[in-house]
């Protein structure tokens, strides 16, 4: 197999994967290094990357962090199951898509405006994107390929992502469970000893006291705050 999309760093201003001729996999197939393969083949390669590279990390996005649709809780549980089978796996969420200024807490979250900072700071060499809206996943995966040597896996509920080294499309909870089983199989083949263990708690951002929070606390970003249902914001400049 000729690898079209590979781990970076691809450089200062790399071509996008579609510009290099990579097309999304058709239904029932997956992408591996830009080539159309079976989902199992892509999962096995991704599993080996997650088992053999440093600091494997799962980046769950809003579509699996919020229990907003029937299948989300099942998917989220499956992701925890998957993470439990990858030795020393971490979970770092992508809770939203706003840039974090003056500085992102790279231990606590990843952000599509500077995803490579989280990758580089944590020395992550293999990662999984899941539940990130496709537009932001594409941007993030491309920036990671541009500036890091991280192996990227995309688990996508829609059509997948050309930019990832391994891309699974039309994802359901059952597919995540299948991926988990493949991880266990590959782990056994590699002779890696591991007890099923949940990832460590994510170091979180400082707790905000919403009872006393005012728009002014958000500084120059106060205009971005949306009011909650029934809430009437009076304290504005």
């Amino acid at each position: 197999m000729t690898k079209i999309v590979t781990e970076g760093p691809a450089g200062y201003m790399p071509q996008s994967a579609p510009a290099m001729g990579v097309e999304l996999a058709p239904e029932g197939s997956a992408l591996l290094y830009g080539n159309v393969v079976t989902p199992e083949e892509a999962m096995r390669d991704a599993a080996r990357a997650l088992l053999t590279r440093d600091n494997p990390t799962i980046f769950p996005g809003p579509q699996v962090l919020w229990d907003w649709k029937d299948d989300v809780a099942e998917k989220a549980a499956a992701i925890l199951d998957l993470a439990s089978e990858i030795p020393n796996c971490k979970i770092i969420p992508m809770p939203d898509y706003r840039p974090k200024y003056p500085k992102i807490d790279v231990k606590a979250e990843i952000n599509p405006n500077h995803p490579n900072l989280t990758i580089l700071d944590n020395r992550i060499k293999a990662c999984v994107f899941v539940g990130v809206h496709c537009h932001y996943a594409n941007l993030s995966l491309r920036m990671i390929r541009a500036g890091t040597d991280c192996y990227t896996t995309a688990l996508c509920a829609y059509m997948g992502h050309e930019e990832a080294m391994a891309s699974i499309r039309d994802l359901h909870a059952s597919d995540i469970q299948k991926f988990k089983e493949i991880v266990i199989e590959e782990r056994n083949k590699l002779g890696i000893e591991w007890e099923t263990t949940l990832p460590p708690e994510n170091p979180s951002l400082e707790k905000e006291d919403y009872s006393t929070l005012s728009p002014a606390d958000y500084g120059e970003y106060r205009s971005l705050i949306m009011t909650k249902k029934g809430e009437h914001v009076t304290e504005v400049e």
Partner: protein
Amino acid sequence: MDASQRPQLEKKKADINYILKEAPREQHFITGAQAMAEAVKRANVDMAIAYPITPQSEVMHLVGDIYAQGHIKEYYRAEEELGTMSAIAGAARAGVRLFTATSGPGLLRGLEAIVSWSGHRVPAVLGILTRVVNAPLSIQPDNIEMAYMMHCGAVMLHAENQQDTFDYTLAAFAITEKVDVYIPVAVATEGFFVTHAKGYVDMTADDICLNDFDPVAAPVPAMDNETPPARIQRDAPVQKSNFMSYLIHSVWQQEIWDSNQRAMKYIYEYLGGPIEVQNPEADVFVLGSGCAAAQCREAHRYAQEDGLSVGFIKVKAIRPFPTEEIRDALKNAKSVIVPEHNIIGWLCKEVKAAIPNGGIVVEGPRVYGGMTLPVELIMKEIHTALGLEYDLKL
């Protein structure tokens, strides 16, 4: 009365493939403007917004009529075109199916908002009923405004006649809403020559419409403030002066054009491909889009009757541009004539850039400012390309 309370007509909802390819059709004799409005009627549009200034075309007036008849949930007349196009962007964030149409100076007035649609992942359909934009002011057909649209990221289809206008507009709704595309699709056709002239259009019944818009199947969250995970900032403000901001802006721009290119497979699926080729072994080709394609088709017919080795290429998709397809179709051509309805020859430039031997391209004939494109002008170029005499009489 708000949109949720407005009575809507009961319709059978169907997949685009059924509507475009399988549903029974009945022939009507209607104008291009009516054809576009009839497509909107069958597209299960949630919201139409327009500034339908006279003398644009009748499209948005007709869309107003079908709103009153209960085919569209919401419609309003904006204050001007920039407001219209900005309102389309705003409505898209709420996750609804959208349509608007404009032309000429109106399009250029709204262009600032339109060029941001692709980056904001706005899945709207935009009708462009072309007309002159240059001074001296005119209301006549001329498709120069399409040149301004070609670099904003939108998918662009160019309809040859009333039938195309109907079919392309329906297909546009399906293409724009694909999760891997999700950028606007513009359907252009020539003002007056198509919009005000009648032609035969085979249409599906108007009690069958597209399935409901699914705001969840999107590459960006809809701004539903009551439902997580959408209760987040959708479009990140990235205008900081640092390398990371520049980088995300650059990959964002790449994403727009990648999305544009991903539309090609759907152009194959719904329109049978981005070009139509007749007589592919010919030495000389006439190549056109929109109304010019209709005249090229006629010139091709004349040439066939005269036994001349002439082929015909109709370009249906302007963006993504069918570079590979045109290169392949012209690989053995000795000459390609590109008639156009504008002075700058934007299609001619695209064709020249697409093929390795741009010297075979004949630039024109071109008409503009409302002038018609007589087939005889194209025949003259065909004869010249073949080294034959032609007695041009207009």
